């Protein structure tokens, strides 16, 4: 009843594969083709958006590991991204470290700092932990803006574009390949994580921490491990922003950033990699679409156009509320519904509770 009709797995290897049925592999193949063809067809404007989405996807997956998969709330996302961005930027600026090693360094430093600020999770849950991570956000922001000798304080850092095989990654087209590969690697790593021991333990901590402890999961250790793993990818997103924008400024990494990322994973789908991507895409595209609409209305309806910045704020809130009310499982659940509908199309038959 809960199995895909007509598909039988004869080995455990194929049964634990990430894409278990041909339709899934076909869809993945199509997606890969679109991703490869996209930069050749898209204008720089859309390429820029695509790069932003790819970076946001990395950050959203990172946050989702902590919040969606392990059930630990974090309001420190923006600050942790700042740690990644500043570490990478400063290493390149001050020590001339190439982008490769300095990105790795940035990830590790963010991971360590994220783990440190995850320690209150030993005693705190839910809203209390949220407040503790809010403190992390404020402390890190304060350190960045006041540790002038190292970070430049409120002055922005100017970071040179990365170089790969002697080629400067200074155009959207070139940078695209870098972020798409790193975003894919992040997605693959996370998918693997959650079909094996460590990821299952994260989920167990989220679902029932008492039961997790009596089957041998060291709950506190795994909470910290979730902070460490999550912050690693959040740091990666931060470092990528540094190299993509070539400018690192604390203003990009405020509490508002934390909230935008929470919005991404809630709208996209908690505990879902696909959802992280959907959410990153929606939250990145929405302001762009509204701005575009504004430009088009500039001449014909200037009254509406002048109101658009306000509409932008309001529509954000509205979309999140609509999702919370109508589809708490987010865009990834909507996608699942569409797939279920076409699964045995044209027959009117709905699969029961299936895989997500």
């Amino acid at each position: 009843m809960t199995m895909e009709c007509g598909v039988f797995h004869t080995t455990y290897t194929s049964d634990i594969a990430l894409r278990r049925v041909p339709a899934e592999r076909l869809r993945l193949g199509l997606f890969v083709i679109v991703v490869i063809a996209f930069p050749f067809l898209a204008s720089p404007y859309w390429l820029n958006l695509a790069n932003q989405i790819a970076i946001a996807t990395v950050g959203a997956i990172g946050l989702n590991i902590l919040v969606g998969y392990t059930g630990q709330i974090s309001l420190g996302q923006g600050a942790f991204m700042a740690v990644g961005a500043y570490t990478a930027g400063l290493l390149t600026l001050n020590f001339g470290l190439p982008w490769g090693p300095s990105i790795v360094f940035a990830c590790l430093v963010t991971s360590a700092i994220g783990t440190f600020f995850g320690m209150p999770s030993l005693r705190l849950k839910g809203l209390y932990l949220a407040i503790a991570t809010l403190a992390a956000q404020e402390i890190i922001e304060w350190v960045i803006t006041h540790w002038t000798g190292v970070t430049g304080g409120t002055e922005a850092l100017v970071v040179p574009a990365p170089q790969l095989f002697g080629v400067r990654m200074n155009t959207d087209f070139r940078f695209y390949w870098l972020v798409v590969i790193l975003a894919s690697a992040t997605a693959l790593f996370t998918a693997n994580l959650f079909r094996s021991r460590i990821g299952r333990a994260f989920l167990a901590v989220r679902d029932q921490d008492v039961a997790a402890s009596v089957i041998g999961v060291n709950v506190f250790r795994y909470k910290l491990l979730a902070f460490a793993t999550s912050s690693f990818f959040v740091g990666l997103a931060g470092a990528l922003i540094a190299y993509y924008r070539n400018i690192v400024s604390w203003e990009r990494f405020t509490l508002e950033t934390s909230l935008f990322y929470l919005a991404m994973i809630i709208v996209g789908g908690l505990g879902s990699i696909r959802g992280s991507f959907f959410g990153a895409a929606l939250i990145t595209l929405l302001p762009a679409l509204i701005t575009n609409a504004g430009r088009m209305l500039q001449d014909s309806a200037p009254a509406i156009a002048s109101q658009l910045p306000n509409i932008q704020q309001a529509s954000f809130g509205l979309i999140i509320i609509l999702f919370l009310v109508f589809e708490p499982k987010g865009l990834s659940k909507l996608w699942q519904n569409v797939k279920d509908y076409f699964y045995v199309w044209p027959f009117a038959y709905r699969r029961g509770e299936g895989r997500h």
Partner: protein
Amino acid sequence: MSEPDALPGLHIDRVSLRFGGVAALTDVSFNIQAGELLALIGPNGAGKTSVLNCISGLYRPQEGSIRLVSEGVEHDLTDLAPHNIAQLGVARTFQNIELFKHMTVLDNLMLGRHVHMRGGVLSSGIFLGRQRREEIAHRREVENVIDFLNLESIRRATVGNLPYGKQKLVELGRALALDPAVLLLDEPMAGMNSEEKESMARFILDVHEQSDTTPVVIDHDMDVIMDISDRVVVLDFGRVLAEGTPEEIKMNKLVIDAYLGEETIRVGSGV
């Protein structure tokens, strides 16, 4: 950890547990010998669940000690954390089912294998070679449990959507997947119909007979308890009231008095 001077099994020695002014357990001592099927009975609030919680490290008794002797080594469980106690081979189920509701049956059971697996974050994320082989090897172990409990058809079902009786079975399966030395079952048959009860009792007996696991069963159904257990420990108001074979317990004056007026509990035909 030291050289054991006691028999293999669990030794509960003068355990007292208080919650504020409430004495949940007072001076409780009894042994669980490896290889026997022990039943723990008593009226509501007698302290049965509290004993299990002390053994699995969820409650820390103010006095007394709990020691596990297995594979020739003695471990003092009294001050260990729950996950360390599980690693030593103590598994359990809960009176009010504590499953990972949003996960599949398969993942719940795979979590039962957690203590036997080694994979770290990096190897899990890369998922090649040794990590993949480990997953597959433990998947095989889990499939044995699935076979044993006839869970094949619901392998990939989300646990939270399963009927109560099935959830009870899955919780047993998760504990069995750990391949435990001691299996603590808190009312495994509560709330089941007689057919489900019978098959649960059958599974417990099979575990007892076919593996090295020592089951400890709490239940209120005297007929089943007297039928399946080798030895019975009776708790009342947080103290051990009696201890003996089912026959001895059925004849025990103190036990009969303690249960008098408890309409939900019928002492079996022998009385």
